[in-house]
């Protein structure tokens, strides 16, 4: 049974390489920035998995929470242990659809797109929609988008002592290069 599944998976992989309509990565980049008068907090993640179906516009990102790197150990620790509870919720996921009507994946250029979908983070799912751009270059596509996230919308409690340091409008930046694999 396992062998059959494996063969099916390989066949699937071959088909998927054959029609070349899925662009993907395992090393996508997502960062976030929280700005307050007290301090700015920034973190980068280079281990995001992303898949874009260039025909249907189906778009998915899997964001491992532990992969966010901070400048300071304490920030990283507080982020993981107190806020995101990454032992309990090790990843965030975005599943959506991009309107790719105006995008030509065979022609280099920067295309404006709109995406709508659902972001699941810290065990809470919310609609996240907005504009972005897709930069096509030599068959690869870089998805760029920015949106803001309010931690309390995702059930993340920030104690009063820390509330002056953490913005309620955290800016999330997606800058993920997807390739034909």
């Amino acid at each position, binding site marked *: 049974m396992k062998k059959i599944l494996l063969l099916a998976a390989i066949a699937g992989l071959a088909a998927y390489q054959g029609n070349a309509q899925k662009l993907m990565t*395992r090393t996508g*980049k997502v960062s976030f920035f929280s700005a307050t008068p007290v301090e700015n907090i920034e973190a*980068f993640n280079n281990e995001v998995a992303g898949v874009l179906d260039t025909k249907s516009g189906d778009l998915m990102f899997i964001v*491992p*929470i*532990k992969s966010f790197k901070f400048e*300071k*150990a*304490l920030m990283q620790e507080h982020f993981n242990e107190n806020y995101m509870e990454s*032992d309990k919720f090790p990843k965030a996921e975005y599943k959506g659809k991009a309107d790719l009507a105006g995008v030509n994946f065979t022609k280099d250029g920067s295309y404006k797109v709109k995406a709508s979908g659902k972001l699941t983070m810290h065990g809470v799912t919310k609609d996240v929609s907005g504009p972005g751009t897709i930069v096509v270059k030599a068959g690869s596509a870089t998805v760029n988008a920015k949106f803001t996230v309010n931690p309390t919308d995702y059930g993340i409690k920030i104690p009063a002592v820390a509330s002056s340091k953490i913005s309620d409008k955290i800016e999330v930046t997606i800058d993920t290069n997807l390739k034909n694999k």
Partner: protein
Amino acid sequence: MKKIGLLLLVLVVIAGGVFVYLWNKPPETVDGKKAIEISSTNLSRVFQDNEKTGNDLYLNKVIAVNGTISEVSKNQDGKTVLLLSGDDPLSGVQCTMRDDKGSFESGKTVTVKGFCNGYTIVVLLSDCVEE
């Protein structure tokens, strides 16, 4: 009385120093930490069979993973990324190297030590160094 004042001052300075040290401490590295040793095929199988079990056993732990390199690439920030084979072509362990030390090529066997960040479509290790 003066002595107590001086002592208090010294304590405050020490406490302040400790605070500044802790506050500015860079994120920890795997250097000198004891690692769980496992092969890349076994590690990826555990996560593929049951992601929760994988996370319970390995998430945030220091892992020394041994396996065959199936792909060498650079991430968007120029860091070297190795993919170590899992037991089918769709799985594996992705290791983001800390620096540019070492030369890697597909087909070679390596042992790489890093922090486990969980699972997306592959198992993730970061801050990796070659052992």
